[in-house]
């Protein structure tokens, strides 16, 4: 473990090299620490995986990073800036946007509307209750472009509820990308998908990682191996180890930790 968590290396790397960083991050639910003392450092421009057995605290970590939950201990830095006290909406405006573990679309809106809502976030007309929707039709081209990118060009006018599970996830990614986030958090983007959906999604994530930082929770290890430069393993809310795929996969602690949860691998 000490070989991987090389403290000397962390000290010599300036904070400016990290898009996202946490120090001693912790969250307790009525005395039970779901996340405890987590020091996470995500290099700018990298794809970084957060893995661990069910209940390890990965989703809670995401909730803390985007301020869906407020941390009990510790701090969160985005591009070196302390965002621990900000609200979810402010964090999003600063360029840190997440997807959800449970598919988060707007079921009664069409695909086009789903993405356009996100585009409205920076457009400054979202309180115009007196304007016809054509007031934001300028956004349609960009929305269509995003939908094409995730393979939903034929589904513009379908409501999200009508989409298959895999397509819902794709729609969610298009919606997230609409904000052009600097840092993207993806919570199990391939969970519940059939094999035929996993490959395109993986390819898409790899495409959008260009010029962005991505932190991804993923159970499918072949996806992790394809996408991620660095991997952090969580267990019982604490960091078990961190390193490259090969380092982590051969770590005896990780192998032991996963014994109980092999079914997910």
């Amino acid at each position, binding site marked *: 473990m000490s070989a991987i968590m090389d403290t000397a290396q962390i000290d010599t790397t300036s904070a400016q090299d990290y898009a996202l960083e946490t120090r001693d991050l912790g969250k307790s639910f009525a005395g039970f620490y779901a996340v405890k003392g987590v020091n996470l450092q995500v290099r700018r421009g990298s794809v970084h995986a957060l893995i661990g057995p069910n209940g390890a605290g990965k989703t809670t970590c995401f909730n803390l990073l985007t301020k869906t939950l407020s941390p009990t201990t510790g701090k969160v830095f985005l591009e070196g800036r302390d965002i621990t006290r900000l609200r*979810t909406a402010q964090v999003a405006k600063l360029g840190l946007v997440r997807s959800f573990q449970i598919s*988060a*679309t707007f079921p009664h809106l069409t695909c086009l509307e789903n993405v356009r809502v996100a585009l409205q976030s920076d*457009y400054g007309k979202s*309180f115009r209750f007196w*304007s016809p*929707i054509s*007031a934001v039709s300028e956004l349609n081209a960009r929305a269509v472009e995003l939908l094409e990118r995730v393979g939903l060009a034929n589904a513009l006018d379908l409501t999200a509820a009508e989409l298959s599970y895999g397509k819902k996830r794709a729609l969610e990614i298009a919606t997230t990308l609409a904000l052009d986030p600097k840092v993207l958090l993806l919570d199990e983007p391939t969970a519940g998908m059939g094999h035929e959906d996993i490959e395109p999604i993986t390819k898409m994530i790899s495409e959008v990682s260009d010029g962005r930082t991505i932190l991804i929770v993923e159970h499918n290890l072949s996806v992790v191996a394809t996408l991620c430069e660095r991997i952090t393993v969580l267990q019982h809310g604490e960091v078990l180890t961190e390193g490259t795929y090969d380092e982590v996969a051969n770590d005896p602690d990780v192998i032991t930790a996963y014994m109980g949860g092999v079914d997910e691998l």
Partner: protein
Amino acid sequence: MNRLLLIGLLLIVAIAAPFFVYPVLLMTVLCFVIFASSFNLLLGYAGLLCFGHAMFFGTAAYITGYVLKTTPISIEIAILGGALFSAAIGYGVALVSVRRSGIQFAMITLAISQFIYFVLLQSEFTGGEDGMQRIPRNDLFGVIDVADNNAYYYVVLAFAVAAVALVYRIVHSPYGEVLKAIRDNEPRVESLGFRPERYKVLAITLSAGLAGLGGALKATVFQFATLTDVSWTVSGEVILMTLMGGLGTLVGPMVGAGLVIWMNDELSQFGEWSLIAQGAILLLVIIFFRRGVVGEVQNLVRLVRSR
């Protein structure tokens, strides 16, 4: 095209209606159409269930009545004044309730409406238990005499058309898109950089103002305002109208308002029993017509078309 034809047809029917039906009954329906539409805006498009919506309806009735009784201000200004007053109350209610959702929001709004009921009961200017009598219909624009019910019907109709058009506009606006997204998935909207509370505050304020418009008009139609208009029974009635007609459809609340008023009329001969009958009908609607009358019809049309 089809839709324009339908709207035109409806307008012709509405314009001709007072020649066939008692205008006061028609005006009552129109007031409740506005009221139910305002409720539908809140529940159907913002996902907020208000249990005390009558507070906006009834308060505006008193305010407009009071203005007309004590000043020579023209009637349309008095009506809009009542609506604005209710919008202001709505804004206040929104500030204290917007962070709650679901049943908690419903309970807070119920509590506030009971409080307002009490305040109006105790107030001098409302006439307490007796209600506010003899509200005059000041001249429209200060010049047009609208004392006659046949003439006044068209004023009420104009307000109702404007109100429904406004709801349509809100629902199909950039703001409406965000509002529907909040209804569908609030945490997601927040994660996209919005502050959902602010959009909900605006929705409650707008809905309260529209509900107030309905109440203000009703006070001028009957020329009196009573505590009934602020009571929980009216709050319940508007829920019934909206659900019966079809939640989240624009026409639903109109049909619902007509149905419930007609039903009340028919049931009134049974006295106290009418309440029980109302409850039973609501139950039947919830069990068999989950989408409301208009929602079920739309669904049928969709099914037939997709064949």
